């Protein structure tokens, strides 16, 4: 393996979908002198652990906008990368079990439509047509957006990685960032386990470990990593088109391109911290809820359960833009939907590096927002 160079135009910390997606966006514009550092293997973090959901049904204008634009990017991604990411727009079907939730969905779909997303309220009869095997006892309504969908996560990461390498980006695995040196308003040096490099830009794309990285320059981030567990069943012939979300329990389930059912459910008692271990409690809770909703799955077998961390901020929206230092860009905090909004968040970050007007305004996402007297609106539609 060749030694690191003494200097790079930009150093990106983290080679998940954000880090590699950003490097790809930069390289595509000819900005190729980029070093991407990954402490473990690719894809180790959330990019290698998520359920592949891509939706625009969010509850704040910022998240809706990020997701809506990102979905456009997902549609053309396989072609652009020359790598199959298997994006399938089978829709997301939210199920409500109380009048209050139905009312919320009515309000939310209206907000989503106001922001260019074709979601709509559905009644149980229509839900049954959209997903015939659902047991809809207790379901009083729902919402559906046909352009939401599912992507195969590791394929996206591999697609970026391959293109980055081909365009001359330096991607290093098993290389740890040990510290950073600052001078005035800038981060000037990054010390790694393979040597120290000087640079113009440093991007913190370390997901659940972003606070650890930020602390190296004395910056405190409000992000908390929170474990979310997930499981996958044996592969079956296709029978389920949309992603199903049960609002009451936070259960989500979809059938991926390989035919496997991928499902998760939240644990309200989960403590903060990076914890990738599996628990029996999750498997039982998920099975109970999933079999209740899709009884036909009771004889379908669980093949594997695993876990990842949602990188959670107080308002469930990402942190972007510079923080602490003028050239220290944040690219994290997407609270369980980082993968699905990465096309926009990486594009906005690339715009900052390239000195262009960002594709979308970065201001609402800056770290400063948490210091304002009026706390920003929290997105209520985090699931799983």
């Amino acid at each position, binding site marked *: 393996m060749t030694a690191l160079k003494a200097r790079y135009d930009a150093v990106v910390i983290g080679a998940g979908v954000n880090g590699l997606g950003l490097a790809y966006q930069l390289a595509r514009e000819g900005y190729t002198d980029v070093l991407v550092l990954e402490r473990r293997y690719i894809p180790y973090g959330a990019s290698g652990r998520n359920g592949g959901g891509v939706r625009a049904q969010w509850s704040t204008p910022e998240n809706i906008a990020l997701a809506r634009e990102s979905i456009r990017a997902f549609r053309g991604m396989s072609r652009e990368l020359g790598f199959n990411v298997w994006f399938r727009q089978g829709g997301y079907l939210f199920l409500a079990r109380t009048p209050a939730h139905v009312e919320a969905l009515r309000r939310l779909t209206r907000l989503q439509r106001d922001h260019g997303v074709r979601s709509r309220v559905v009644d149980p009869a229509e839900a049954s047509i959209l997903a015939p095997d659902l047991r809809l006892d207790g379901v009083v309504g729902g919402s559906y957006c046909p352009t939401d969908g599912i992507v195969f996560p590791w394929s996206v990461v591999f697609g970026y990685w391959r293109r980055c390498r081909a365009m001359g980006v330096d991607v290093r695995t098993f290389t740890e960032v040990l510290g950073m040196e600052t001078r005035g308003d800038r981060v000037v040096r990054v010390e790694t386990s393979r040597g120290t490099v000087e640079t113009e830009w440093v991007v913190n794309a370390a997901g659940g470990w972003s606070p650890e990285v930020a602390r190296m320059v004395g910056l405190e981030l409000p992000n908390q990593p929170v474990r979310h567990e997930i499981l996958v069943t044996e*592969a*079956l012939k296709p029978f389920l088109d949309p992603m199903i979300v049960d609002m009451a329990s936070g259960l989500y389930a979809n059938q991926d391109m390989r035919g496997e059912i991928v499902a998760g459910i939240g644990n309200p008692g989960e403590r903060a911290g990076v914890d990738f271990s599996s628990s029996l409690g999750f498997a039982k809770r998920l099975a109970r809820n999933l079999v209740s909703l899709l*009884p036909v799955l009771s004889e379908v077998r669980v093949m594997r359960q695993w876990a990842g961390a949602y990188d959670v901020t107080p308002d469930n929206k990402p942190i972007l833009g510079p923080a602490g230092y003028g050239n220290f860009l944040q690219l994290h905090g997407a609270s369980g939907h980082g993968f699905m909004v990465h096309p926009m968040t990486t594009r906005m970050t690339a715009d900052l590096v390239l000195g262009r007007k960002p594709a979308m305004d970065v201001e609402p996402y800056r770290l400063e927002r948490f210091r304002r007297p009026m706390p920003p609106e929290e997105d209520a539609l985090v699931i799983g």
Partner: protein
Amino acid sequence: MASDDARIPEHDRGRPVTLFLDGRPCRAFERETVGAALHASGVRVLMRSIKYHRPRGLFCVQGECASCLVRVDGKPNVRACMVRAEEGMRVESQNAFPSARRDLLGVVDKVYRKGLDVHDRFLRPRLLVPAYHFVIRRMAGFGRIPDSPRARTRPIRLLRPDVVVAGAGAAGLAAAAEAASAGRRVLVLEAGAEPGGFLLHLRRPVAGEDADGPTLARRLAESVRKAGGDLRLATPAVARYPDGVLTALAPQGLLEVHAPALVLANGSQDVPPLFLNNDLPGVLSARGALTLLHRDGVRPGRVAIVVGAGPDADLVRGELEAAGVRVEAVVPEIAAAEGGSGVEAVRLASGARLACDVVVAAAGQSPRPELVQQAGCALRWDEAVGAPVPVVDAEGRTSVPGVWACGEVAGAKDLRAALEEGRRAGRSAAEAGGAAR
């Protein structure tokens, strides 16, 4: 090629039953597995593989390799080698049309001769991409969803023994017998239909003991039961969670085991062979062939080639010949197996071809790594075994308090070592298992 003489006459297989394969009746016996019954009837192709639609059939015969998945009574992905035949059972091919034997999509294997990397294919022309996705999605997935839409949930049974032993091979039974004799409540979890593990295949007097393997296994199992041990068969350990809970899958449902002492004795598994067409029906692992012979009483074929060397290969040859299978040759390696829907010959590196209808691969064993890793045990690389094994002290204690490991899973090299390690671990676990309560 159906032949009743594939069944070994003296084997106790219970009463005859009739099962149906893709609608056609097939003779079976109530103590035979579906896989064995079909094999004895000359049906070797049980399914087609996921990408290339290659013919597949029995290989490991232990429920581990997923090469024998069939649809049984409307339920998908059933391991034919583990489910017992029942009167009127409906068995159907999966992922194949019209049948596993004559699958139209087998053409995929012939077309993509140089391989099929789905990452950068099916991207052009753009207009066809939706069609590609439509087809690929339908070719993915194995069985269809179950016929019955009714939910079938089974209670989870909570057990609280003093000591739980994973594996009822030589080491596990020895450990369980010691712990139970010391007065502890012992639960033993065994994936197989009978206790004994590899002992069941050692049909000659075992070195250092006065009996053959099955007799030794019977004695050990008896001593466990006499001492009050609870021996569960067809119940593999399924997970060891970080909080110490162990789960196991019994025929009636999940067991959730809370025990202060866990003894890992779940042994080793065969290493699959590497040669061209190593996946052809008729290629069996050593354990697979021995299980078909001893557990199911079915000869794997008429003419066998054994690929391997040393005591493992000798054992396999001996058992095959004792069962009336002609062993054409024992060779250290082969270049390829050949055949259309099943093994018909092997090709050696020299180019010579030997006709046969079964290939038994004795390519060595490897300790089962999963439970040891899940329990968080510190590991060391064992050069002789070619795999990581748990670090254990003289009492079989691993680096994790409350977890012991013994026998082949810990790298034991022979039966004597396995028995001795089992006894020590059992004794040690019994001391600790009581103290923790």
